[in-house]
């Protein structure tokens, strides 16, 4: 409450408004709409009635402001608040930046902003605390965005309009305030008591629950599609990365040398029955490779790339039985195989195997059964295991029993080297890369089909792209599709069309969905960019 008081006092210097009114506004209208506030103001402070009308004009003017300015203003407010956080710094805004603003309004809008402070702050808080850099960027590059659609939206879209409305009005007002005032305290939308509490807790647990408290997440709607160079395939990525100058080579080398001095100690401890696990930021592949090449050349060893997308425990066991033990024959289950391996290693003490596993915590190996089998392998006295883990929750894979089987010794080897190999497989990457694969699979599948079938798919794809801007596009209904195909002389009966569709469905090129009216709708589950590329390519071929 004291904060509010403080602010109110400050406001009083510049504005002519009764304390009670402001207080009332702040406490009552935490989440109420701007217009309501305005109405109350009109009633209460007669002196400003005329100017308030101006404001309402302003408001309307603001609502039709160009997106560009909106962004600029938003950015300004964010920056103001950031700067305000560092005391002693003052920020002044050139009013020339906002030519639309009538010269007569500032005073009144200041006033207005005071009454809305609680609400404004809540908005501001959300923005600033989540995305200041984003905003900063926008401040420096306002022209980057020229589209006029709403930049921010909640994932629950029904609130979108209202939010936008609020923001636009409030943001314009915000920039008029002196920065020290705007950021006196980061506040929440609710009661002052809560505000204080939230301010004090830097408790990250609460942050978590706050983030998960509502299903609504407010992020910007921009997509990678709007950037032209959105997709890079693996090759170009590598080429580009090679161009990037390496940083801190000297320091990295020193780090690596520190780790390398431990090699013989590792060997000693491996021989004494311990297993070694490496953790820490940075790819440990090169380190382990170096360990392998420098110390293991004369002994039998097995390298397992855990990050390989289709690695399984079975393949590890297979390479042990087939290549190390030279055992021919199949096994009913991995457990049988493990039994044989354990038996052979127990019988023959001269048999020795070094097991190097990169990324023991990879998706394919982290399962309980895989870990159990690997742990049992590691517990054999003549199998020496050295592995690396990267995932933050990797140690949760092991319960007490497994840990004692593994008999780990932990070594921190922070290398800071990039995880090039580990992230090089297509499916381990984010959406940026998935495009090329989908495209190549599309072309591959379609090339093996008849021209008619290709035509069918093209037809669907075109329709799909035509409707790409329609958010409620349910897909093409089967009957409709059949009609179109007939008209294009692609099929002669519903049955043939269905047969073709089965083919597509098997290759996951289309998806069928039953609408609310019971009609079957067809969809292509490939993103629009890839589809466009595909159509372009197809057109070239023809």
């Amino acid at each position: 409450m004291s904060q509010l008081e403080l602010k109110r006092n400050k406001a009083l210097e510049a504005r002519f408004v009764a304390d009670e009114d402001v207080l009332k506004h702040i406490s009552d209208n935490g989440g109420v709409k701007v217009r309501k506030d305005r109405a109350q103001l009109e009633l209460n402070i007669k002196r400003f009635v005329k100017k308030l009308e101006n404001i309402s004009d302003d408001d309307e003017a603001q609502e039709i402001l160009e997106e560009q300015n909106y962004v600029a203003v938003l950015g300004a407010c964010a920056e103001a608040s950031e700067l305000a956080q560092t005391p002693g710094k003052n920020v002044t805004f050139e009013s020339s930046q906002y030519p639309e603003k009538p010269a007569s309004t500032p005073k009144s809008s200041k006033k207005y902003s005071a009454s809305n402070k609680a609400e404004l702050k809540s908005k501001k808080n959300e923005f600033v605390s989540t995305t200041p850099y984003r905003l900063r960027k926008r401040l420096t590059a306002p022209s980057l965005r020229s589209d006029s659609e709403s930049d921010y939206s909640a994932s629950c879209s029904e609130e979108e309009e209202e939010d936008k409305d609020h923001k636009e009005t409030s943001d314009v007002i915000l920039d008029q305030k002196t920065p020290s005032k705007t950021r006196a305290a980061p506040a929440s939308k609710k009661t002052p008591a809560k505000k204080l509490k939230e301010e004090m807790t830097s408790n990250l647990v609460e942050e978590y629950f706050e983030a998960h408290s509502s299903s609504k997440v407010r992020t910007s709607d921009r997509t990678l599609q709007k950037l032209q160079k959105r997709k890079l395939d693996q090759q170009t990525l590598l080429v580009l990365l090679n161009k990037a100058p390496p940083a801190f080579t000297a320091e990295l080398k020193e780090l690596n040398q520190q780790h390398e001095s431990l090699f013989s100690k590792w060997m000693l401890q491996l021989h004494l029955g311990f297993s070694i696990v490496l953790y820490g930021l940075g790819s440990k592949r090169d380190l382990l490779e170096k360990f392998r090449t420098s110390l293991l050349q004369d002994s039998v060893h097995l390298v397992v790339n855990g990050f390989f997308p289709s690695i399984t425990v079975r393949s590890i066991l297979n390479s042990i039985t087939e290549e190390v033990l030279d055992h021919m024959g199949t096994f009913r289950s991995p457990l049988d195989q493990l039994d044989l391996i354990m038996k052979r290693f127990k019988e023959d003490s001269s048999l020795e195997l070094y097991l190097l596993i990169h990324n023991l915590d990879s998706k394919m190996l982290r399962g309980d059964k895989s870990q159990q089998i690997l742990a049992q392998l590691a517990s054999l006295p003549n199998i020496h295991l050295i592995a690396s883990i990267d995932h933050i929750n990797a140690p949760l894979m092991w319960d007490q029993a497994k840990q004692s089987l593994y008999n780990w010794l932990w070594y921190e080897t922070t290398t800071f080297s990039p995880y090039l190999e580990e992230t090089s497989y297509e499916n381990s990457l984010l959406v940026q890369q998935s495009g090329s694969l989908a495209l190549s699979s599309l072309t591959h599948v379609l090339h093996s089909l008849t021209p008619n079938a290709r035509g069918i798919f093209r037809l669907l794809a075109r329709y799909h792209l035509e409707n790409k801007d329609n958010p409620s596009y349910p897909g093409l209904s089967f009957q409709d599709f059949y009609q179109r195909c007939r008209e294009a002389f692609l099929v002669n009966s519903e049955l043939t069309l269905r047969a073709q569709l089965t083919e597509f469905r098997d290759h996951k090129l289309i998806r069928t969905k039953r609408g609310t009216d019971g009609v079957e709708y067809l969809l292509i589950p490939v993103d629009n960019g890839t589809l466009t590329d595909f159509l372009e390519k197809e057109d070239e071929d023809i």
Partner: protein
Amino acid sequence: MSTSSVSKGCFVFKPGSKKRRISSPTADYFSQGKNDSEDSGLRFATCQLLWKQINSETEKIQEELNKQLFDNLIHFLRQSHSELQTKKTEWMCRMKSSEIPTAALVLGVNVTDHDMTFKSLSEVLQDNVTPYVVSLQAKECPGIKHLLQKLMGQLMDCNVDVDSSEEEECVNISQKKIRCSMASLSKWYESVTKKTDSETPSKKRTSSSRHWQSPPIVVIFKDMESFTTKVLQDFIVISSQHIREFPLVLIFGIATSPMIIHRLLPHSVSSLLCIELFQSLSCKEHLATVIDKLLLTTQFPFKLSEKVLQVLINIFLYHDFSVQNFIKGFQLSIVEHFYSQPLSVLCCQLLEAKKRVNSLSHNQCENIRSLPSFRRYVESQVSEKQIALLTEDSFLKEVTQTLLEDLHIYHENYFTVLRCLHVFTTSLPKYPLGKQIRELHCACLGKSVWETEEYESAIQLLRMLAKDELVAILQKCAEIFISSSGKQFSNTVEKLEEFLARFQNLEAETSEVQDVSVSSQKELQKTTDLYHLQKTLLALKESKRSKKLTKFEMLRFEVVDFIDSLVRSYLAPAEMQTLNEVVYFNTANTLREHLNAAPRIALHTALNNPYCYLKNQTLKSDVGCISNTAPDICIVYKLHLECGRLINLVDWLEAFSTVVTAVEGTDPDAVATDQVDEIIHARFIRAVSELELLGFIKPSKQKTDHVARLTWGGC
């Protein structure tokens, strides 16, 4: 051959057969690591020998501790068996109700120790009761079929051991083909028992000396809790049907509480069992014995310093309750000590050490001279001796020998007096110096215990002990001193005996005193006048106040002072002893790093504050702001911390490129107009996929081009 491929993930490397080494090269690695490899061969041999001794000692301890439990179990098995033998009818009727005799073995939560217990248990059973012992683990038996397979497999193996060699082949074949069912099991059992019956009497006798005539089949479920209920239920129901055909005994290994049986099995199934409960010894007792036998003894020259011991005990108490892990930590400290301390070559039995001192090289002598404790010692000497110590190797060696002997004597005295003090402190209320001897040991090892507050309060409390207690404690102490090997304690023992004698004498004297008080009480009863009563009461009070310390109290003070003097002279902290570095392992940090690592903290530090690892001045930055020069992944990580549950990739990318381009000092306006630079884009992609690999984010389908954040909170 490279180990990266897009088609496979496993690479086997086999060196040519001629290149393959045959001899064990472990010792080589021991010497390779350090440039300071004095006497490494000898050190390694000493280390191995010491570990072997310690390991066998721990096994012995375990065996002794489990003896009671195993005896009980064998008795139980014998009973169920003897019933079968003698009271055939009764057994029959019990079998009719088809109850399986079952031993529920409550072992405690320290799961890692169970394996050893079960191993020795099955050995003991095989030696004493029956060759047919099967131990099953839950992970091997996902279904009833697997369970029976395992059961049969293990039984057949036992069979092979007993059988003559000619049977082996057919058994092997049958094992593969056999249809694993209870019927075949009973058939097998019948054939086996018949065979032993029909064998020659001489052979029969030898076998029956160890086993009984129709030995029971013992099935051990090592981890009862992890078995799926269905498997257990099925097995029990099926085997109860066949219990008439062969004597089956189950042993359940239970980590939690016996209640679990009833939770896992419905009444209809558990009523088929005839359960008897057995409790194994607690892990705390086990640890106490291990510490007592391994650490508080002069038998092994190697010692742990206070901090190291504290680390190991903390891991035990706060993480796993596993004695096995404690011993592992102990092993690691032995290895580390011998690996890192060149003078550890002297860490062996006294006589051997004295011999080794003579053959020390000049470098090793220098090593001795650089020991902090030795330098302290030198400084306390007169100047001529100082010079001699620092210049003459031969003189140094002589002195070292005596110092080592002193150290040995110190330990002998230390442990005796420690035990004695422990007897005193355990009798105190609230245990100011700890209940366990290990706590007392830690307190004494670290610093001068008599300077601590806890010791003060302990002495205060000792001064208030009752006579009976004091006498009992003194007797115990006398026993400890007598049993100790040190000869220098003969005086102490005499003194203690003298104290005990004086306490005896006191008894006679106190009875007289009591007489006086009794008479005064009688007087009290006589006076009926209120005035007189008051007067006598006052007089009594007066006399009490002015009364001098009784003889008992005097004696008690004397005893406590005597103990105090013992503590002060013998329980000096180990760090003060000259040459303690030779036998004490004190780098607790390495131990903690290797045994109880914190990978999350390491990751967070690297991401938040790369300067910790990369000692570059440009990375030095305040908390909370994003350094432009930091590695890409650090920047991306810090940017993602500012986001909520979902992160828009485009915005993230732009923020990243703003931060990165800010470093390069380019005018932001110039860059801003254009699209994001390709290289920066590529760097961003790499950093984001690295974060995904590390588990900070994951792709989200909630919104296009968004990723979900997975972590909240540091570490």
